[in-house]
């Protein structure tokens, strides 16, 4: 087997593992709104870039507690996931947020734990210039 094929298999295995990690983490945090369970996936720090949360694991914890009270019906569908090295990028549909939002979340993983998060959010409009939907 060539070195380049070995490299591609290692890379594919890392992508598979990271997608599974992030999917489970995200589902616990935002869909189940169980921060205690999600906390186990977070590393020694959590650098937050979202405009919706304060820095650190405690910033995320505060957001999850806020969502539990204010957006109890919030549910995020994972539409597509791209994994590249230590990063996982998810294209998501946030329902009852309120309304529906198109979201891209980006996570960085270090030693098997989530340590950094970026996102962008946009309301899905009632009408569009094409028939393809935002997803």
């Amino acid at each position: 087997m060539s070195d380049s094929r070995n490299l591609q298999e290692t890379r594919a295995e890392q992508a598979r593992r990271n997608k599974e990690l992030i999917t489970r983490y995200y589902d616990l945090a935002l869909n189940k709104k169980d921060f205690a369970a999600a906390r186990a996936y977070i590393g020694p720090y959590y650098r937050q870039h979202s405009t919706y949360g304060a820095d650190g694991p405690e910033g995320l914890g505060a957001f999850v507690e806020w969502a539990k009270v204010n957006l109890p019906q919030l549910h995020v569908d994972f539409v597509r996931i791209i994994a590249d090295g230590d990063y996982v990028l998810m294209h998501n549909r946030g329902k009852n947020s309120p309304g529906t939002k198109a979201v891209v979340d980006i996570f960085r993983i270090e030693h098997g734990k989530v340590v950094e998060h970026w996102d962008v959010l946009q309301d899905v409009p009632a009408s569009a210039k094409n028939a393809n939907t935002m997803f």
Partner: protein
Amino acid sequence: MTGYTCASPDEQYSEAERRNRDVVLDFYDAGVNRRDYAAAFRHLGDHYVQHNPDVSDGAAGFREFFDFIEKNFPKFRVEIKRVFIEGDMVAVHVRSFDGPTRNGEAGVDIFRLEAGRIVEHWDVIQPIPDSIPHANSMF
């Protein structure tokens, strides 16, 4: 195009992934920043499925949208911060300047390629607010 970082070191990508990245970066720079449609559209496949709700389908829709930008925001430009590649999917995390919003926008564009040509595009765009609850920036 300079200033961007790829999620992995160059040697980690397959040849096809490096080609897909280069196609998307050249398309982006030509189409979005230089508004040189002839240079941009040679990277499109025989169809271009558009998911941005403000843009009509196909190459014609792309051109119509950026003609509007060129006319109303001639200094509009987009900087690519980070690039993510997996097989036929290429995503870019970007910041726009001098467009319709005061602080510019943070966005992610996702492209799907077929045989080295761009055939589909999704994006999510959020205006950068005046203040955010941490010192890390949106990037």
